């Protein structure tokens, strides 16, 4: 349930934005939740180890495998960066409610985008130099 919390918040935010802008509520938030649950379940069922040796290089399955592993790796990086940012914020802000508390959360989450972009850029550079984009 704890792992589901960020995606629940995301789906709720989606629904809230639709409602706030006067649009009819769509199935998008529910589909987001369903997509997350299906992806996580499939990712747990697949035996990833050694798969790259059993799939023909250059085939569609090979590209799909690498894409899935990219996503898995980057989700891990994003999770770790989020934890770091939120821990740093918790250590730097007062525990009692003050206006700065909300603002610091906004800054922390905004900083996350910059960090994620930098990591993505370096990851892409490293993989392209390893022949991934040939």
């Amino acid at each position: 349930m704890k792992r589901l919390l960020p995606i629940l918040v995301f789906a709720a935010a989606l629904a809230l934005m639709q409602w706030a802008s006067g649009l009819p509520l769509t199935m998008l938030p529910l589909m987001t939740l369903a997509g997350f649950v299906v992806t996580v379940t499939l990712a747990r069922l697949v035996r990833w180890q050694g798969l790259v040796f059993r799939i023909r290089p250059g085939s569609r399955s090979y590209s799909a495998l690498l894409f899935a592993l990219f996503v898995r790796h980057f989700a891990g990086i994003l999770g770790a960066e989020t934890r770091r940012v939120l821990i740093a914020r918790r250590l730097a802000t007062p525990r009692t409610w003050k206006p700065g508390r909300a603002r610091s959360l906004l800054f922390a989450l905004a900083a996350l985008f910059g960090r994620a972009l930098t990591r993505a850029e370096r990851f892409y550079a490293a993989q392209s130099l390893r022949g991934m984009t040939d």
Partner: protein
Amino acid sequence: MTPVLEVENLSFAYERRAPVLAGISFTVYAGECVGILGANGAGKSTLLWCLLGLLKNQGTARWFPRAPARNALRRIGVVFQNPEDHLFMPTVLEDVALGLINRGCQPAAAREQALVALGQAGLGEAAARPASQLSLGERKRAAIAAAPATSPEMLVLDEPTAELDPRSVRQLAAVLADLPVARLIASHDREFLGKLCSRLLVLGEGRLMAEGTAARILGDAGLLERAGLI
């Protein structure tokens, strides 16, 4: 001596900002180990990114000028500061093998070669583990093992000793010292570069402040002081 990299008057500036690199010129020859020594923010990583074509710079950087090829970067092994930029497969063995498979090696042969490369890096027992379960030192060695596995003619390393403990640094130096290819290593670690490199380039405020043998450069306290290295 055969040059493997010729850099002439290389300059770089981020948009609407002061130049990060200005007028950098040097040559790296086959088989030699060259260190780029500089304090934090001196422009070492930016220089490597320019050399690898990841940033658009002014001036020229010619890889393998005697035998130019369309895709020269395929002949280079690169290891960035953060090993997580390299290792993303379910096991370290697959991470090392992937570079070989991407360059046309059959999966079974790639697996064998990767096992050998990991063994040479002292990581034979860690082959079946994911990179996330290894120490930072082991991950760095795995990333470095992945680079020479593809038999590059040159290795480029960015801050290989960053965040490593002394033992891991020694193990890393032993792995790098045995490699027969040209190596270009950017670092602020004077001791590490002094042990490994025959020649050092000192980078400071985006300029090449000095170039010479490791002994001469590291013995010049005034130069090191000006470069912010002591």
